[in-house]
């Protein structure tokens, strides 16, 4: 058995993985190049801006100004030819030098800020993605199997909840649960003035602040999975083998698991798209709920013209997206028996 797996792995699956690796590397390359060109397409010269903010925007153009500007341009390598700057850009990337954050947290390095904020965003994205997938698909499957009016009801509820704009729905939930019912807090990471500590009360406080953004996205995404899975399972059931096997006397639970197993495959493909959408929506919700993740960081950076942070943040988001998509693709290749065993149609 083990030898056979190794043989097969050397054939189809490895080729599959290799293709994915190449694809995502290209995406990464395109993304980074895109960032580079955007920074250079920006109107105005960053050095001008820098000098302006340091000298409180006094009249420029004098001899001292020009000398200073020349020195700074030289220091930052901005007067080198574009291609050379491009190569320097890549060298910096590979040494993980994303520059200092300016002007927000100067001279803290962008990388350190991002590493600090990344867990907050991931703490929402990963649990929502995983947990909503399971609950949503379970609801969808159950509804499909029940059929009839119950199935229709679940359909309309799940479509509606899935189409709720996340940013708006977040506002609504804050209004209902924070404003009116006062169960959950509506903003921030923890109650005002509390210091980060190992105390349980602090953890619970954070959890309370975490709840609303989490629930907002959770409901929306559960709806999405439920809608899809319901259609998939209904389709499976219509394939006949389910009703037929039922007649033959198979137990319902056993049948359901077979139908589900077939139906879940296309759902896993959707996991990729949902991950990308989820990252974007989490970013928006962070801004609204004041949850200190990457999204809020980008937003503040955009507000303060902190270009190093903006682009560093974008690049890290790309890396997260690429990694996530890659992992999900591999997972799909693992689950799909056709890819795993290398069957050719």
């Amino acid at each position, binding site marked *: 058995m083990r030898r056979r797996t190794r043989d097969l792995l050397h054939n189809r699956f490895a080729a599959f993985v290799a293709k994915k690796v190449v694809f995502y590397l290209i995406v990464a390359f395109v993304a980074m190049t895109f960032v580079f060109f955007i920074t250079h397409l920006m109107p105005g010269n960053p050095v001008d801006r820098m000098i302006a903010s340091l000298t409180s925007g006094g009249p420029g153009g004098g001899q001292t100004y020009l000398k200073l500007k020349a020195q700074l341009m030289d220091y930052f390598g901005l007067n080198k030819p574009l291609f050379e700057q491009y190569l320097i850009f890549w060298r910096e990337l590979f040494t993980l030098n994303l520059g200092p954050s300016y002007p927000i947290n100067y001279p803290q390095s962008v990388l350190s800020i991002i590493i600090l904020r990344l867990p907050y965003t991931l703490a929402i994205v990963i649990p929502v993605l995983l947990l909503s997938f399971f609950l949503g698909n379970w609801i969808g499957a159950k509804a499909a199997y029940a059929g009839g009016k119950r199935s229709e009801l679940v359909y309309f509820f799940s479509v509606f909840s899935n189409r709720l*704009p996340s940013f708006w729905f977040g506002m609504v939930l804050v209004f209902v649960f924070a404003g009116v019912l006062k169960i959950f807090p*509506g903003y921030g990471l923890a109650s005002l003035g509390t210091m980060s500590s190992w105390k349980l009360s602090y953890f619970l406080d954070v959890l309370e602040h975490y709840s609303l953004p989490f629930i907002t996205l959770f409901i929306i995404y559960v709806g999405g999975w439920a809608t899809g899975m319901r*259609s998939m399972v*209904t389709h499976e059931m219509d394939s006949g083998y389910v009703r037929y096997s039922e007649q033959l006397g198979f137990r319902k639970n056993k049948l359901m698991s077979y139908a589900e197993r077939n139906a879940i495959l296309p759902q896993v493909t959707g996991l990729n798209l949902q991950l*990308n959408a989820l990252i974007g929506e989490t970013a928006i919700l962070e801004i609204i709920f004041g949850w200190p993740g990457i999204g809020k960081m980008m937003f503040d950076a955009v507000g303060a013209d902190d270009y190093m942070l903006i682009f560093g943040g974008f690049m890290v988001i790309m890396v997260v997206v690429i990694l996530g*998509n890659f992992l999900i693709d591999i997972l799909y290749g693992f689950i799909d028996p056709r890819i795993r065993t290398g069957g050719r149609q």
Partner: protein
Amino acid sequence: MSETLLRSKKFIVGLAIVIAIAMIGIIGPYLTRDPLKENWNAVAQPPDSDYLLGTTVLGEDVLAQLCTGIRNSLEVGVLAGGLGTLIAVLFGALGAYKGGWADEISSFVTNVMIVFPMIPLLLIVSELTQQRSLMLVGLLIALFYWPWAARSIRSQVLSLREREFVDLARLSGMRDATTVVTEVLPNMLAYIIMVFILLAGGGMLAEAGISMLGVGPSNSVTLGQMLFHAMNETITPYWWGVWWWFIPPGIVLTFFLSAVFVMHAGMNELFNPRLRRE
């Protein structure tokens, strides 16, 4: 085929809601007050007989804002949808039809673009532009949304490519591009229209999202802008409870998007008869 479409319950219900909301957007602004007119005597009032949806913090009529908002949001959506569909047809149809090289390239480009997370990109690009018109926002959204449409159009063209009338056209010596435009596309017209509607819906949603973050169209009342102002022009909005201000735009959006989804589902049942029995 239009008769069968009209028989699909999902399609009809969806279409009805879409048209209803569009009507509100088109006709509404003529029947309501000036949405930006402030009334300092009636600030932040809940709905009553005069102001059917209440007033904002500046005394503006929420119902009027809603109607104008629907219209402007629709405008952005239609722009985004139209341009996006155009680009999608270019990449999806031409590439899929020509096959081989052209197909590989266009589907590769599509797949690469799909991975990009839209919101951070939109944030960055909006940062570069100071004054944003409705048109600009529509354009930007189209630039980020077309890959989705291109994918579906491509699969549809691929299936149509093998049909008889296409072979006939090829035999009679028609050039590829001509064949696509004159033979293939008209047969997918309903499908393309559906893609357009889907993109338009998505465009409205995207506009609302970036508006709420403050990088939407400047100086226009859209559904997203209503949410933005509701959030930012009240000191503690949720505690003031101006629910009549920020709830309606979202509800309209949700209904519109759900209707578009249901229309699409109805149409899918048509194009893939296997899914038809529910």
